[in-house]
């Protein structure tokens, strides 16, 4: 549990590992291979790595063209420049023809840190969720990242994967971890409320659970690694069994995991849901920990929201 590995590190390692297993895997980057860690793959398989220069739109559509020839391209950049700048290329040249392109977006969220708001993507879940047929994944640790990359390779269709820059705790054990696309994982039990989280916020949710426990509140924690398609069955189960939901994501509260959960519950089982995320604001430069504090991505904030959600129960 003491190990800390950034999910982008695990992404690069997974590409290099699966490059040997899947010969039609190719990787593209837009001059950020050192940061996205696709450089690890490039070193192992130089003939299967294509740097596209700082031209994300072109990279995405080139990947679309490559996929039509039977290759499985992973196109990588920072989340901001992939989901953001290349949104329309993703929508029209990957999503609309439902091509087998994988989008490996690193540096998602506020934990980008010192580079500041221009590089801290807090909108990618929202953008990607709106594209029909797009699968959206945000793994919570290195073990889940590795498994998610292989699941993306085996899935026929477009997949958006979001990884983080900062080193974060390894929560799972590689030996007994199983990743199922579209199936969340109950990582800790509890019946008073459920915290449904993704990415770096899963670990924060586990800390919140400890805080709550000291106050006699038992909160369940769900690792919702697949944001689309959302695991409806698990969301409904949590709502039925706990009656109070808090979502936690490193993303604007608008359009992301929280609203995906609200969408399920408002239509099928109206239940109090409170959302933790950035409150419709841009980020700023700073170290990771004080940024998380400033934007409310903390165990304390989640714990407060859990208590408020419980108070809303009928």
């Amino acid at each position, binding site marked *: 549990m003491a190990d800390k590995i950034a999910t982008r590190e695990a992404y690069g390692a997974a590409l290099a590992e699966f490059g040997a297993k899947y010969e039609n895997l190719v990787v593209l980057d837009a001059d950020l291979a050192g940061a996205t860690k696709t450089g690890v793959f490039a070193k192992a398989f130089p003939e299967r790595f294509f740097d596209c220069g700082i*031209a994300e739109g*072109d990279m995405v*559509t080139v990947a679309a*063209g490559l996929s*039509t020839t039977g290759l499985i391209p992973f196109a990588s950049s920072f989340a901001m420049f992939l989901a953001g700048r290349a949104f329309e290329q993703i929508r029209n*040249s990957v999503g609309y*023809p439902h091509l087998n392109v994988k989008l490996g977006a690193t540096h998602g969220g506020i934990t980008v840190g010192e580079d500041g708001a221009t590089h801290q993507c807090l909108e990618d879940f929202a953008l990607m969720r709106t594209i029909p047929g797009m699968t959206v994944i945000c793994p919570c640790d290195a073990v889940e990242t590795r498994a998610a990359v292989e699941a993306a390779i085996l899935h026929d269709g477009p997949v958006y994967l979001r990884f983080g820059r900062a080193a974060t705790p390894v929560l799972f054990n590689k030996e007994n971890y199983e990743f199922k696309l579209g199936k969340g994982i109950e990582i800790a039990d509890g019946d008073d409320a459920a915290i449904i989280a993704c990415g770096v916020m899963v670990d924060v949710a586990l800390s919140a659970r400890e805080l709550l426990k000291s106050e006699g509140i038992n909160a369940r924690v769900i690792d919702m690694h697949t944001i689309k398609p959302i695991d409806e069955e698990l969301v409904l189960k949590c709502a039925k069994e706990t009656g109070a939901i808090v979502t936690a994501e490193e993303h604007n509260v608008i359009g992301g995991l929280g609203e995906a959960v609200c969408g399920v519950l408002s239509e099928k089982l109206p239940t109090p849901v409170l959302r933790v995320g950035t409150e419709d604001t841009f980020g700023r430069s700073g170290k990771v920990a004080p940024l998380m504090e400033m934007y409310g991505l903390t165990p304390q904030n989640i714990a407060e929201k859990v208590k408020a959600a419980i108070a809303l129960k009928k």
Partner: protein
Amino acid sequence: MDTARVDQLKKIANGVRKDIVTQVYSASSGHPGGSLSIADVLTYLYFEKMNVKADDPKWEDRDRFVLSKGHASPALYAVLAAKGFFPKEELVKFRNIESFLQGHPDMKHTPGVDMSSGSLGMGISAACGMALGAKHQGKAYRVYSILGDGEIAEGQVWEAAMFSAHYKLDNLCVFVDRNGLQIDGETKKVMNSDPLDEKFAAFGWNVQVINGHDFDQIDKAIANAEACKGKPSVIIMDTVKGKGVSFMENNAGWHGAAPNAEQYAQAMADLAAND
């Protein structure tokens, strides 16, 4: 080229033009001007050059074509139908809610369409990906794409231009349909792209400028492109927007407008005169 063969191609291209006008008339919408200007090169590609199988549209070793200027879909559909990819009767359903012939090309539902396109500037990048895929897998097929001269203003075109020269995609041949007109008027006035030949040359391309309605010139230019090694080729085709229909020729108003019944009859009479 053999003059008898040129005559055959001219005849096919004239049929394609009739089908373009019929599609746009049937749909009461569409883009006739820029479809008519590429009827000759598309006819040449599908009837003289490209290695494709109408009964096996996804054959993996086929030559590929990407209509980067996707709004000229009526030209592509007319050629694909003439080639036998789908029944010609489908053409009158163009843009109809029950048809697979979408306003802009849809690779998922239209036999023979190699890439969905329509949002300008993207098709050339997709063609680059196909050409790179061919090289990476040691395949001999070639990739063709047609850009509009207004489309050239999209930044992505130049990202792709750099990419294809960088990766020495000599299996890629791109045409620019330089008809000089776009929706808002003359390309020179809307956003001047001159000197286009020098721009592509500066990006490291093999550049040729031809008359896009002359089959001999098309034939020679493509042969030159095939012989050129180590760099992608662009063939800038000077063309007439609305070519073959008297009242549509060189008129930006026919970029995205459909003829009424009277105009349709006139257009078909103009084209019949060329048979």
